[in-house]
């Protein structure tokens, strides 16, 4: 019980520190912007540790962060192997294929209005589907190795990417388009000089949504058959072995990979769409 009280105290302390930082003189600085969420995260971890210890939660239900960290450090080799299998081979290749394919189809659809009008509602519909459900089918079709994971990812990212890109290509002001007409510009010139740059914010929105979808897709697919490595494989196997510390270490890997992936795309976005109001400082 004492430890649980300590957890509450920790929460109060963390919050007070953040309140001081966020409202204090340093509020605008990059350091504060970084420190506040870090303190918040550290507070949560600390509370987790204290509560697990305080209530003596069994290891097989929820391990403490310190135990997870230990496992993480001890099994980096395995974790890396799983990361390569699930993230680099499955998610990333599927992500690349899916996004490029959707982008190409979007450009074709944009060229032929009939196709766009037909494809967009269908694409919108598909984007709302629980496509995770296709995982067992695709594993049956494409085998158990990373190809089937990539296939699931392709299907998952394709439609959000398509819908966003098509919307982006259409997101030019009438005036901007008229301007090109006053120059007597060709279709290709309008596409390259106006529509593609104007579509970039939407394209990147699609790319960002797709990052999380890619990770989910690759991991889900591993539940339906996989080689004996991979994040999803390790998680399900470790649960079966009651090695919950390993499970959480894998979850940490996935969250870390996902955050970095998202962050990388967001960083590229910032450079490419520097001109968009939401990115101007």
């Amino acid at each position: 019980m004492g430890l649980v009280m300590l957890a509450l105290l920790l929460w109060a302390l963390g919050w007070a520190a953040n309140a001081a930082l966020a409202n204090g003189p340093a509020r605008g600085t990059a350091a504060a912007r970084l420190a506040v969420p870090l303190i918040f995260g550290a507070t949560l971890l600390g509370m987790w540790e204290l509560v697990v210890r305080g209530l003596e939660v069994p290891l097989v239900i929820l391990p403490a962060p310190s135990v997870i960290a230990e496992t993480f450090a001890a099994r980096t080799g395995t974790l890396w192997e799983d990361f390569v299998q699930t993230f680099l081979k499955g998610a990333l290749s599927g992500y690349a294929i899916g996004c490029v394919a959707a982008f190409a189809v979007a450009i074709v659809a944009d060229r032929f209005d009939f196709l766009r009008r037909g494809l967009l509602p269908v694409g919108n519909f598909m984007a709302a589907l629980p496509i995770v459900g296709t995982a067992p089918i695709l594993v049956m079709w494409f085998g158990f190795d990373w190809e089937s994971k990539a296939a699931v990812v392709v299907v998952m990212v394709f439609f959000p990417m398509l819908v966003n890109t098509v919307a982006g290509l259409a997101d030019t002001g009438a005036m901007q388009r008229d301007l090109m007409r006053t120059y007597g510009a060709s279709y290709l010139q309008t596409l390259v000089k106006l529509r593609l740059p104007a579509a970039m914010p939407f394209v990147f929105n699609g790319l960002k949504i797709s990052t999380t979808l890619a990770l989910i897709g690759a991991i889900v697919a591993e539940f339906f058959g996989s080689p004996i490595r991979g994040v999803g494989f390790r998680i399900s196997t470790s649960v079966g072995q009651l090695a919950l510390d390993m499970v959480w270490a894998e979850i940490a890997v996935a969250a870390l990979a996902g955050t970095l992936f998202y962050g990388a795309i967001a960083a590229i976005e910032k450079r490419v769409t520097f001109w968009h109001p939401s990115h101007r400082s």
Partner: protein
Amino acid sequence: MTPVVSAHALDLTFQTTDGAVHALKDVSLDIGAGEFVSFIGPSGCGKTTFLRCVAGLETPTGGTLAVNGMSADAARRARAYGYVFQAAGLYPWRTIGGNIRLPLEIMGFSEDEKARRVRETLELVDLAGFEKKYPWQLSGGMQQRASIARALSFDAGILLMDEPFGALDEIVRDRLNEELLALWARTGKTMLFVTHSIPEAVYLSTKIVVMSPRPGRISDVIESPLPKERPLDIRDSREFIEIAHRVREGLRAGMEAA
């Protein structure tokens, strides 16, 4: 001398979901080379629509229209005019220089030629030194000047301007008006200029076209007796006030008739 723009009994009706809108009715007008023509009238009287017809961006449903002796569409493809929109409408992902270079790229000018023209037009609109800046780093007035530079860069004989200074404040506007007059004097281009402001129309034009709405039509055409040389305080002169009064009366009459 054949007119640069020659409209005869022009008619344009938009079909919309809630009925037809008669945007232009029986509009006839000749504009000679080197004229500065202003179009003024209340909102919705068809000023923009007329300009867009001249630019070949809209197809009239009746009447005839010739630009430089050819159809408006052919004139558009022959790059007969530069068009300046109400808002500057610069592409935010291009620098000021890049924006001015845009039409030159599309029209396939050589690298040297592009560089030269960008430099020259930037000087013309007094923006030398801002080539590398992005549009949003400039004030509204400067953006509008850049968009004029963009329309000037490929040196078309006609300049179509749709309320180019509508979004600017009076003082900036005054200065741009002065500069525009000087530019017109220097280049001898034919100007078609849409505005809401009576003083602006009177100050700039050799000919003022007063329009009225529902249906959009020309209610008056006023030839200005003002000299070509116009200092800003010509606006406090008797003649100026008289023309302004006549324009205001024309506007009011058009409103009441509608």
